[in-house]
């Protein structure tokens, strides 16, 4: 399986191929926790949210909501505790990028969560991981302990007054718990039923307290944004879809894998036929589900010769959505009725 960047320098996948990439040592040797240092020693919470807004980072879980705006909805003057929750449920069929981000680079997620906690005035972060990903919970737990031993989690982080705990939490098999309010119910020890909105989690989330729920890929983008600045990050992508995006490619391609592409990458046909190695056994492309099972299916006729750009606006213009980036390719042997039935 391929894992790497095409058309840009790897950001989120920069360390995935390194030896012991999951270790604190490797992470720090390659710039890890420098962003946290920069934030804690000279940026105010408003500065952090300001940079995030400039970055045009949009939620990578599927909805594509601007992350800076989501963070700014958390009431600053609330006397209640505030929570940062990482959505690592990754239950959307066809999506597996978060798995590799956590497996190969767990400290990138911890650093992203710590920066979020600082910006939002939170002292507690939870990583809600689907129960099936037990081995990832074990990797994250080891990384959290490593970070704690190095003074990066717990009291007086990096010698400052900032204190924050990071905990893992396991789900137990429920697709719906990838929806943020169902996830919060599950984290409270209830059945994972979605809640009515409003109130939104930013106002009343975990235990009725202000809460930000972000996807793994969203939070792991934060350290690079703080390091390079929001504007530089945005410029890697398009005006409204800043930065890079990690796609999970599966199905009928010669080279399935995890691909980091700049937002606005052109075009989808080249991506399938060249970057992903084309369709196996000389067969023809029939359709693509570009963003996980919740997005519209694209027939080959909407892709071939249509110069579809791979970003939020480009995919909407082409009749589908980025969603979670779960990119499922189907060749001409697939019965579309059967494949749709499979996902229902």
């Amino acid at each position, binding site marked *: 399986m391929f894992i790497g960047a095409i058309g840009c320098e790897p950001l989120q996948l920069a360390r995935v191929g390194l030896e012991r990439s999951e270790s604190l040592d490797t992470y720090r040797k390659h710039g890890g926790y420098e962003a946290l240092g920069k934030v804690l020693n000279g940026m105010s919470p408003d500065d952090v949210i300001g940079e995030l807004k400039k970055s045009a980072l949009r939620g990578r879980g599927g909805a594509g909501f601007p992350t800076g705006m989501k963070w700014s909805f958390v009431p600053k003057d609330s006397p209640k505790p505030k929570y940062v929750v990482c959505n690592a449920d990754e239950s959307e069929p066809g999506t*597996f990028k978060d798995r590799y981000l956590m497996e190969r680079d767990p400290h990138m997620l911890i650093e992203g969560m710590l920066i979020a906690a600082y910006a939002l005035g939170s002292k507690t972060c939870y990583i809600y991981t689907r129960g099936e990903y037990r081995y990832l919970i074990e990797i994250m737990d080891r990384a959290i302990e490593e970070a704690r031993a190095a003074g990066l989690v717990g009291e007086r982080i990096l010698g400052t007054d900032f204190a924050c705990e990071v905990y893992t939490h*396991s789900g*137990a*098999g429920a697709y719906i718990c990838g929806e943020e309010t169902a996830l919060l119910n599950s984290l409270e*020890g209830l059945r994972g039923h979605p809640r009515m909105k409003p109130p939104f989690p930013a106002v009343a989330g975990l235990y009725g307290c202000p809460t930000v729920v972000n996807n793994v890929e969203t939070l792991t983008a934060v350290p690079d944004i703080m390091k390079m600045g929001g504007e530089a990050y945005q410029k890697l992508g398009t005006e409204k879809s800043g930065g890079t995006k990690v796609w999970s490619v599966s*199905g009928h391609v010669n080279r399935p894998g995890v691909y980091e592409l700049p937002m606005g990458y052109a075009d989808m046909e080249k991506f399938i036929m060249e970057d992903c190695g084309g369709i196996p056994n000389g067969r023809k492309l029939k359709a693509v589900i570009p963003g996980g099972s919740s997005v519209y299916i694209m027939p080959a006729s909407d892709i071939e010769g249509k110069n579809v750009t791979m970003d939020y606006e480009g995919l909407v213009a082409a009749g589908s959505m980025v969603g979670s980036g779960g990119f499922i390719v189907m060749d001409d042997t697939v019965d579309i009725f059967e494949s749709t039935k*499979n996902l229902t």
Partner: protein
Amino acid sequence: MSKQFTPNNPLPQEAPVPDEIAQFSPAVEAEIDGHLAKYPVKRSAILPLMFVVQRERGYLDKPGVAYLADRLDVRVTDIWEVATFYSMINTEPVGKYHLQVCRTLSCKIVGADKITEHCASRLGIKPGETSEDGQFSLSEVECLGSCGTAPMMQIGFDYYENLTPEKVDELIERCRSNQLSNGVR
């Protein structure tokens, strides 16, 4: 593998309190304390604790449910209510080796059905069944996030990817000779 409560098979208003309550070693009690320490509200630890009880007792049995209700200060009914929602919580015994083959699209279009059929014919059970000797259970499950390395299955918590019928034969052989972890932890 959980028993599902439906309108025709409703959950009683108040589930009976089991006569027996499970007991655990000091090491397991310490592990449970570790989970409880993560949350300001005890009930949040319900799923992590269910996994512990399941590992220790094979499945979430009635004495295990009574233990959880007591430990978390909630009703026995509350424990059943949560247990029956989540597919990974087993309220009935499962085989020592629980083979869970992904059936969702990315696996399906590269041969998941073949893998399931192969498992079924080798084990002599259908998906949803447990072998008479209690060694194997077979299930078809939804996407496990292994689409780039399809087809795949999970045995206990362990992933086995890029499967072929030959690899399945080898895995089953290693299960039969007790050379493979059952992935329960």
